[in-house]
């Protein structure tokens, strides 16, 4: 959509420049010649003010439709906490998702086709939670919880990238998101629960929200 509108405008500008260079360049003997004294043309100026304005408003409206669509609250969604700290990600699955003890992990597992509502917290500076494959990113800001919604639709493993300069290890602040089937997801949660139980680790994702 953007490209369809952009290319003709760029081609138009370049075409006019090239045509002028070819057609109107100074020929030998014209060193002292001047062009015709055309000062303007109101109709033309109105046209090239209104048409771009209409195109732009059209584009903005279209982008709102897409944005509204992307951010619509679905009927059913699960909550996953994301915590950024220099220079690692951790992910929290509350009891409402695990159906038992909460789970914390440094790997993000998501069930395919399920709408996810991420709650983003930072322990130190600002990070940005970006999954290029999902085409979505949002900053992770200390002091507030930022929410962010996505529905993975394709199985696979994709990179998670910190996309806001957060210090020395910024370029290495990476993790993986594994989009798996519903049953695999449940099984993974079970193994994580038993692992946490044995190591005695606890997770308090809400602590950063103050």
């Amino acid at each position: 959509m953007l490209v369809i509108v952009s290319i003709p405008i760029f081609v138009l500008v370049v075409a006019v420049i090239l045509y002028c260079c070819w057609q109107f360049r100074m020929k030998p003997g014209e060193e002292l010649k001047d062009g015709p004294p055309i000062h303007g043309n109101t109709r033309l100026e109105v046209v090239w003010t209104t048409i771009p304005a209409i195109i732009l408003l059209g584009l903005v409206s279209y982008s709102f439709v897409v944005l509204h669509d992307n951010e619509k609250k679905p009927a059913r969604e699960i909550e996953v906490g994301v915590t950024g700290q220099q220079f690692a990600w951790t992910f929290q699955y509350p009891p409402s998702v695990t159906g038992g003890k909460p789970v914390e992990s440094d790997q993000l597992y998501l069930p395919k086709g399920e709408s996810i509502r991420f709650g983003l917290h930072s322990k130190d500076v600002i990070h940005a939670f970006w999954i290029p494959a999902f085409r979505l990113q949002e900053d992770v800001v200390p002091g507030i919880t930022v929410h962010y919604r996505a529905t993975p639709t394709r199985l696979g493993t994709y990179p998670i990238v910190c996309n806001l300069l957060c210090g020395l290890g910024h370029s290495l602040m990476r993790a993986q998101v594994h989009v798996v089937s519903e049953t695999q997801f449940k099984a993974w949660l079970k193994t994580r629960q038993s692992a946490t139980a044995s190591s005695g680790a606890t997770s308090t994702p809400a602590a950063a929200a103050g």
Partner: protein
Amino acid sequence: MAAKFRAPGFYRASWLMVLGVAFSLGLTWLVRMSTGHATFKHYIDGEAILTVSLIAVPLLFLVGIGGFDYWFYWAAGRKTRPEDHSSHGAKTWKDYFRINTDHKVIGIQYTVSSFFFLLVGGLIAMLMRAELAAPGAQFVDANTYNGLFSVHASLLIFLFVIPVFAGLGNFVIPLMIGAPDMAFPRLNALSFWLLPVAGVLMIGSFFAPGGAFADGWTAYAPLSTDAPVGQTFFSLAVQFAGASSIMTALNFLVTIITMRAPGMSFFRMPLLVWANFATSLLVVIATPFIAASQFFVLLDRALGFNFFNAAKGGDVLMYQHVFWFYSHPAVYIMMLPGFGIVSEVIAVKARKPIFGYRMMAFSLLAIVGLGFTVWAHHMFTSGMASWIRIPMAITTAIIAVPTGIKIFSWLATLWRGVLHLDTPMLFALGFLTTFTLGGISGVMLAMIPFDIHVSATYFIVAHIHYVLFGGSLMTIFAGVYYWFPKMTGRMYDERLGKWHFWTTFVFFNATFGPMHILGLQGMPRRVEDYASKFGSLNLAISIMSFALGLSTLIFLYNMVTSWRGGPIAVKNPWRGMTLEWQVSSPPPIFNFDKVPTVVGGPYEYGVPGAVHGTFAPGPTPATVGASGPRQVAGANE
């Protein structure tokens, strides 16, 4: 010898700077001792002394070279020492290295020192591209790399693009409006000398303990408030550069409003003057905001104010709002003077009047107004309240309309003209193509769903370089070539100029074009290491960027050799109508031996017998209202 240490100059500056360090040591020691050990572990603290020194030493340097002399004498009730104009016109190179109140000397001081910072910033970019030529660590560690891109951006924004436009404007504007100098010559001299101070602070930060400031030129809190002391260099360098641009903007505004020649109404002003008028409005309104943002960071760092410490009630997002409230208008501060230059070059080189002159002037003012309503489009993914995105996206799209009007009007000016395709014109046309691309990618970024994906990726890096390199720098080159004969009295080498254009244009696109693709594929910016799948494209970009760097050498060689031994320039080599071309090259000491009278528009090319200004015995200054006597007073000062 003792007189040398008392007279304004570098001798006096050097002992005053030593005094500045001693003062900082004494002050911090006194404060720490009087508040007791409980707060401060030691009376003598290196970082505290350094922080105070970074304020005291530059100020005392400016006192030393004589930036404040006149006002100090006046304030002390002593006899003031009027300028004797001895260094006007800069007879030797030494006249460029002292406080000099001649706007033409200051213009050259500004332009040359800005280009020095362009070279430093460009060399830093070469180091970055060397590091990015392959995935993994090549030459520098993460901290140094973060320092490199931070200093690169800061130098090129605060010490190249903004001041070089101020420099060209300084030289050209008084000439264009028929004034003998700027309204406040001493303020003008002081505002120039603030720049090298800011530049030395930024470059000097590499020698600070913990390395240069490394949080990008955006210095987002709270990363910047916890960073090593190099960050203080940035916070303070921005204060000096910002003060410089505010002073110059005030000077431009007063000069343009009060010192126009008789007959020069606002709608007879050349568009470069209009553009600098608009830019100065932006600077005066917006620049205090970045000063504030960096003072907040400094107070957080040095004195624990906790403006941005969320755990102590600070507000992290506020930094970004204050910062971008300056830094978005700053984009126009870095572009509008370029629009002015391109208007001059295109009208003269196409031998036609500017198409739709009034709309060109009004669209500048529209950009000034709208420029203050779009800042949060830099924050679409920042976690701010989500409704703010929608009005900001609409205004961002709308601001493309006045910009579009300008582009279409330039195209219409070319139409049916007699195009002289020499170096300034080639750069102006190159600007039109690359800036259009930068503008289009800007409109794309206004579309929130798209921005959410590519924000802070290489797509942004590509966009900003299309706007600031393909946009601003192309117009700067056009302007430097165009006014080179007027500034130096010599002609540049046309053949080398064309080589410079074509190498710059080709390698610019080859360097920054592919970065759009990298961004769309998901390569984040500000990383010294990246996923191996981006390797081959990055290697190609690095090679092209080195060629782009080399193309600058053609420019330098051309400028240096032409200035030293180029053919002598006639007063009006381009057959321009504006007033600066009606006086000798370089112009006389007070610009106009006779006060010009403006009788028509600035771009009446092709109108038989039309002139913009006359030097015929016209009305005497006393009969033409307020502007006349002022000019005479300025000339005799």
